[in-house]
């Protein structure tokens, strides 16, 4: 079967066309169509996995067509294990978000139909951004996908949604513009060296002098750091997460922000290895600050969604730490972390979303005693929380452990600081669990209803994956290790060998 990835990108768009043909009033049919389209995409992504050769180094399932030949721009896609797992994360989470947030689309400023159109367009773009192997193509999708997210937050969110959406958009676009100048810069360098290409493999073979590398690296890195979000570029995130619907937040933090950390590996590391080594200590510092800052602020949050957003800042700190430690454990830990964080954030946002929807308030103080009223919901939230604090037995533990091992050999002091993040994580999770789930049943909570079958069906696979990958991470971790070793050899670094002296 040819063009697997292109078909994968197009399937959600076919869903959009199908939605366009369904009558606006028939909300149920619209939802069913959207779910069907996303499930079809999921099946296609399994086909992609089936055709993927784990041992092969480099991009697979590649396709390449001329797009704008005047600038040597190609529509070029291909995947390695890192991008394929992220694509899989996308195709799994989108139907779950649809099923979990069945009524999310109904009280927005626009029609439910528009909601699913935006969501499916977003899915196409998310798959495309991970599959792109042409830097220009990547950039175009990286920027264009902000538009559907903007309308999803501003059109269907709560509270100060318009302002939050605008802030998110302006921050991201600003980073994107910096990246654009770096993208143009590296293209001009390739032209001057006689290649003239945007192909990421070709670009990684260029020789670029150190000071130019530094500037171009920063152009890419700042864009990714805003996206990821790393302290001090994070300020757009809490507002956006607080205002967006649970489903949008899930996709925003679970997948879209991964484009930032994914971009760091794919572009910062492989295109500018020299600059990566120069800036690594500084970035490690920012990462550790993010870990601690996010965790400490998470403890103090009153709003449950902002709390989850701050925990994510902390987790993105861990991912960045793992990447820039430049060891194979660090990078493969970070890539695995991206997947786990995707699922655990999804579980947190979706369960929190149900709680907020039922209670009509997102203040942690308004909750209390949920364990007694809605046991299944409370348990789900509890497990999601445990996964956020990286409890052994859940998959996030594996990745966090790998990141810490990987970075300890290079940056012991930073790693020790980062490790305190784990303690803080236990604190912010357990405090919320205590306040929201246990204790007296606060007034207003008595009549809450527990999860229905649809919601159980939505959350079950996420929890199952968190547990399964916690006990048996090999199916995901092994391919990631192969991809990581390719990245390591591209940067030209090797793992530090343990010193033999006693």
């Amino acid at each position, binding site marked *: 079967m040819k063009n697997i990835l292109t078909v994968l990108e197009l399937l959600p768009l076919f869903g959009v066309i199908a939605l366009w043909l369904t009558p606006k009033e028939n909300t149920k049919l619209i939802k069913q169509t959207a779910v069907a389209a996303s499930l079809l995409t999921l099946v296609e992504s399994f086909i992609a996995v089936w055709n993927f050769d784990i041992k092969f180094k480099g991009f697979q399932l590649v396709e390449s067509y001329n797009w704008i*030949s005047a600038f040597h721009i190609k529509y070029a896609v291909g995947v390695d294990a890192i991008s394929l797992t992220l694509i899989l994360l996308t195709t799994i989470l989108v139907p779950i978000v649809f099923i979990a947030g069945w009524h999310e689309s109904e009280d927005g400023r626009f029609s439910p139909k528009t909601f699913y159109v935006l969501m499916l367009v977003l899915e196409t773009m998310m798959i495309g951004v991970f599959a792109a192997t042409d830097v220009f193509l990547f950039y*175009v999708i990286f920027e264009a996908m902000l*538009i559907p997210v903007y309308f999803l937050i501003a*059109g269907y969110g709560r509270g100060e949604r318009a302002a939050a*959406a*605008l802030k998110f958009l*302006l921050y991201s*676009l600003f980073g994107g513009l910096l990246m654009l100048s770096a993208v*143009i810069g590296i293209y001009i360098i390739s032209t001057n060296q006689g290649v003239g290409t945007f192909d990421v493999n070709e670009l990684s073979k260029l020789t670029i002098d150190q000071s130019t590398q530094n500037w171009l690296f920063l152009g890419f890195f700042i864009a990714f750091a805003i996206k990821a979000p790393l302290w001090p570029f994070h300020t757009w995130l809490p507002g956006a997460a607080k205002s967006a619907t649970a489903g949008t937040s899930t996709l925003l933090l679970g997948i879209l922000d991964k484009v930032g950390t994914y971009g760091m590996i794919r572009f910062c590391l492989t295109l500018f290895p020299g600059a990566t080594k120069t800036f690594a200590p500084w970035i490690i510092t920012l990462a550790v600050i993010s870990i601690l800052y996010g965790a400490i602020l998470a403890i103090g949050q009153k709003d449950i969604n902002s709390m989850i957003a701050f925990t994510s800042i902390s987790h993105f700190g861990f991912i960045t730490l793992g990447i820039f430690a430049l060891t194979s454990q660090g990078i493969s830990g970070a890539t695995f972390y991206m997947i786990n964080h995707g699922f655990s954030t999804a579980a947190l946002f979706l369960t929190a979303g149900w709680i907020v929807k039922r209670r009509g308030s997102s203040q942690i103080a308004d909750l209390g005693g949920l364990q007694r009223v809605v046991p299944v919901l409370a348990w789900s939230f509890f497990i999601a929380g445990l996964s956020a604090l990286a409890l052994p037995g859940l998959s996030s533990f594996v990745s966090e452990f790998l990141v810490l091992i990987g970075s300890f050999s290079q940056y012991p002091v930073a790693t020790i600081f980062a490790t305190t993040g784990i303690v803080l994580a236990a604190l912010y999770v357990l405090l919320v669990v205590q306040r929201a789930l246990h204790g007296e049943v606060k007034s207003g909570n008595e009549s809450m209803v527990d999860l229905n079958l649809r919601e159980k069906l939505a959350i079950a696979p996420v929890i199952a994956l968190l547990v399964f990958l916690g006990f048996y991470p090999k199916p995901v971790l092994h391919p990631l290790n192969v991809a990581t070793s390719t990245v390591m050899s591209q940067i030209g670094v090797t793992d530090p060998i343990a010193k033999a002296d006693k």
Partner: protein
Amino acid sequence: MLSAPHLNYALLAPILIILGAALLGVLVEAFISKALRSRLQIGISLIAVIAAFIQLIRVRNLTSTSAAVGSVAIDGAGIYIQLIILALAFVGLLYIADTDNFTAQASAIPGSTEEASSIAAGSQQTEVFPLTLFAIAGMMLFPIATDLITLFVALEVLSLPLYLMSGLSRRRRLLSQEAALKYFLLGAFSSAFFLFGAAFLYGYSGSLSLNGIADGVHSSGANSVFLLIGIIFLSVGLLFKVGAVPFHSWTPDVYQGAPTPITGFMAACTKAAAFGAMLRIFYVGFNDVQWDWKPIISAIAVITMVFGAIAAIVQRDVKRTLAFSSITHAGFILIAVVALSKNGLAAALFYFISYGFATLGAFGIVTLVRDSSGEITDLNRWSGLGKRSPLVASAFSLFMLSFGGIPLTAGFIGKFSVFTASYESGNINLVVFGVLTSAVALFFYLKIVLMIFFGESRSDTLTVVIPSILTRVAISICVIVTILLGVYPSLIFNSLQTFATFLH
């Protein structure tokens, strides 16, 4: 004994067709009854533009510097710019065809009984069509003219009708007349600068043709101060026409006062024509003294971009906002001028298209949003438009996103190609300024989108009129071009690779 000059009529035909149609239009005004005039004029104008377009396509591969005794150069870039101008003018004419925007009798004093009676009689000022055609002819001549006299004549032929057309608004006539007068006075002033510069250049090089001036740079023994004075004054005349800071002050007032269809036409076509001429003058005439003028034009490009973007943020009026946005875009095109390379030229030509169609589209939508006293240009009253009329609001947002340079719109490719050309020529500073300005500009473009879709609806009297078929076609063309060239710009760039050259 004088011999008749040899003219290559096939190559000059596109301009002659337009001029002929304009003259025909004047005759129609004189001899045809009132009832028929308007339709006839629309038909003549549209057919003339299409015919000229087809003729240009037919002769696209013939190049010549001697088509009109050496005073025009028909070359790839010249033909391309003419095609762009005609395409933009076609859309502009579709708006102008909605004569409801124009005063019943321009000579009547605003508010007088004469005005009232001419409105009651259903009079129409259909002279706007021949005037438009004259302006188009001037615009087509301007970018292919290769000597300073022809340039000046073309400049006046394109400007004079525009001065008149700016004063023809049906509503808020005093504002419109003020705009016309302001445009005329400042325009006359800038023409004088242009002539003054031309005189100095002649004095320096002993030649009026661009090639002669370029040769003069090497061979003339004259003091090069004359050359510099000439370049600077000539540039002032051109920069005025494109609305670059600090010669921009007419732009917001004229854009606001002129009838909206005219504003759209003027903003899109004049910019293409004036930049076309500017590109030729700098690329052909002043190429060898580039180190003298590049710093000045670069500085003007930066000031223009930054000033336009910052001033646009505080505007309340949609037409003034678009005026400042057009100033910002003039700055971006100036970056392409300074790039001084084939890619720079190609980027500029692409930018004319992406900017031109988005501008025409945006002004077209402005004509639709009205209350009983005419167009609503107060941006605050546009708040919540998305709820009332999602389609119109989406189209307007698309044009804003294209102006802002969001990927998958033509505006992004325009910006990308300009930045790439500039980077390639080593002007990295300009790219950095361009990128930062884009961020500022994005702020006000997005603010408008935000307000349209998410603002509370404040104005009960606001209505979105059902557009006429012609206006609908025009806006659809703009939407299609903006998306199509954003997704597949090779449609234009493949041909630009062969066409983006000037004959020396």
